[in-house]
């Protein structure tokens, strides 16, 4: 039998570079001393991305001359932490971990940019001992957690979701492990400008201009961005999707689908999905029909596009349903997906990700879990989260789906944070 602790360096390297997360690579190095010495540590720690300046200007206010108008960039990772192998009946824990703007690690709500969970005493989660799935990461620009009293303005700046990737400066071929000259590497940030246009920031290579460049092309404002199969993809509010090239050209990936009100991109099981969210407005009508009882008024719900009555006051928007499409890369179109099978999609503020019902250890998938302020309770600090079940075509707050609500907060006891 082969002694795998003595595996040649090139073979170890071949496997480790297939581990598509820095976290998995780090863990690979922790197996034994020979593996540790032959797989170099790429990054000084897994909390940060390399090659990136510590502070960025806001893309919608491109002024980097003044330190007050630049903001820290932080990377956070979404983990699904499974219970120890001998405790299979317990449920896993979904959590986002990353530094705050002062470089202190925090636990963040998986779907929120700003909401974090307090820990009142020092704690440690040892990832050596637990099976952990890396579900993805997100990047945020700004001072978080926001402290409304002491730091005004900072986070009220308009900031869309940001995606970051390392790429070859000329081709934007994203690292596939081939030993490319390091000098050619750059980091690229892609987001959506307040105008709805795409904005790109390149850094790390001397030819990079280290400023936000707005891509003028736009038919309708963009809704979402993501990195799929190593390429930066953006979708606009009609569902038209494009891939952004190194020369900042855009190339069509999928024709529009129209339909709903807000489009999200999410990768699931190797496929790119488009999630189309339909909103309706809660309307309060103040009209009085004259009988003095005021029963003509009330709260109504309308779908977008309804002609407003002059007495109506448009209130909060509420998600009413979702449609999901799969990218057909050859035909360049979105194909409607009737069932997600055992997949569960999560739509966060800065990151959309997916997991299988099997990994989540729940009986069924086929759901979209999303943030919705309508479900937030003004009495408690609970974040509003909703669940849409594709098969049942049912939408409800997270609390109506007990098997889903238990992955969030508080952490299960076996994590050892109690």
């Amino acid at each position: 039998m082969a002694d795998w602790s003595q595996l040649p360096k090139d073979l170890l390297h071949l496997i480790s570079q297939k581990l598509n997360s820095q976290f998995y690579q780090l863990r690979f190095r922790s197996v034994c001393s020979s593996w540790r010495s032959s797989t170099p540590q790429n990054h000084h720690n897994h909390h940060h991305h390399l090659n990136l300046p510590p502070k960025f200007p806001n893309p919608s206010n491109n002024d980097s001359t003044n330190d007050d108008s630049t903001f820290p960039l932080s990377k956070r990772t979404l983990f699904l932490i499974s219970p120890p192998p001998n405790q299979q009946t317990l449920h896993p824990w979904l959590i986002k971990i990353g530094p705050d703007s002062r470089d202190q690690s925090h636990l963040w709500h998986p779907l929120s940019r700003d909401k974090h969970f307090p820990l009142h005493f020092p704690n440690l989660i040892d990832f050596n001992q637990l099976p952990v799935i890396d579900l993805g990461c997100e990047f945020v620009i700004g001072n978080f957690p926001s402290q409304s009293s002491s730091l005004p303005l900072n986070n009220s700046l308009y900031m869309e979701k940001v995606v970051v990737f390392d790429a070859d400066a000329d081709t934007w071929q994203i690292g596939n492990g081939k030993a490319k000259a390091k000098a050619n590497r750059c980091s690229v940030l892609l987001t959506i400008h307040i105008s709805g246009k795409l904005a790109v920031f390149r850094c790390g290579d001397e030819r990079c201009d280290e400023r936000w460049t707005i891509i003028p092309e736009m038919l309708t404002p963009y809704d979402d961005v993501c990195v799929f199969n190593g390429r930066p993809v953006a979708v606009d509010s009609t569902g038209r999707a494009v891939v952004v090239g190194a020369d900042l050209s855009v190339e069509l990936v999928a024709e529009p689908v129209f339909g709903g009100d807000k489009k999200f991109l999410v990768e699931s099981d190797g496929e790119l999905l488009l999630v189309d969210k339909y909103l309706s407005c809660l309307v309060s009508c103040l009209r009085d029909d004259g009988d003095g009882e005021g029963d003509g008024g009330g709260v109504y719900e309308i779908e977008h596009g309804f002609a407003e009555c002059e007495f109506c006051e448009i209130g909060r928007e509420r998600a009413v349903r979702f449609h999901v499409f799969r990218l057909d890369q050859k035909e360049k179109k979105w194909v409607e997906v009737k069932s997600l099978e055992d997949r569960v999609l999560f739509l966060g503020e800065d990151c959309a990700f997916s997991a299988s019902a099997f990994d989540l250890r729940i009986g069924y998938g086929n759901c979209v879990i999303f943030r919705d302020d309508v479900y937030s309770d003004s009495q408690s600090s609970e974040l509003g989260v909703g669940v849409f079940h594709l098969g049942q075509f049912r939408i409800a707050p997270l609390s109506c789906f007990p098997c889903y609500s238990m992955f969030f907060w508080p952490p299960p006891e076996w994590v050892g944070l109690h």
Partner: protein
Amino acid sequence: MAEEVSSQMNSLSISETNPSSSATISLVSGDDIVFKVEPTIAKEMETVQSFIDETDGKITTIPLPNISSHDLPYVIEYCEKSIAGKITKEFEAEFVKKLNNEEVKELFLAANYLNIKKLLDFLSQVIADRIANKSVEYVRRYFGIENDFTPEEEAKLREELAWTFTGVDPDDEDEN
């Protein structure tokens, strides 16, 4: 009976890309089982091909002491698909389903020994997928590796892999 054999031979040769090409190559597994393959298959295995080239094609029986007769058919199957240009996601998924952890590791070493780049690349992905989200202890068991770190090194590892939360800062408490 003889007819049956020859018709089987015919159906076999149809699947080959070029049945009229030169003599078949015999690959001899570590446990002395002979596998006859078309020269095109041998071409996929760089180690075998360079052996043939070195002897100007005079030697067509190649011993492969490091590869068992259990693993060799998998390697040949993959090479056949590769030549036919039929390495699809579906094929790979089916191929992986058949393999247990031990076989994946053995085939990985076989692919390395035979220098079949595509197969090696594919199997390294399979291994990566199988260990990605597992604990370090699981990965050690998977590969039969002993933990040889000193307590000091172990402490350093823990630091690298763990998240330390310092708790709430006094400033944060002022928030409300």
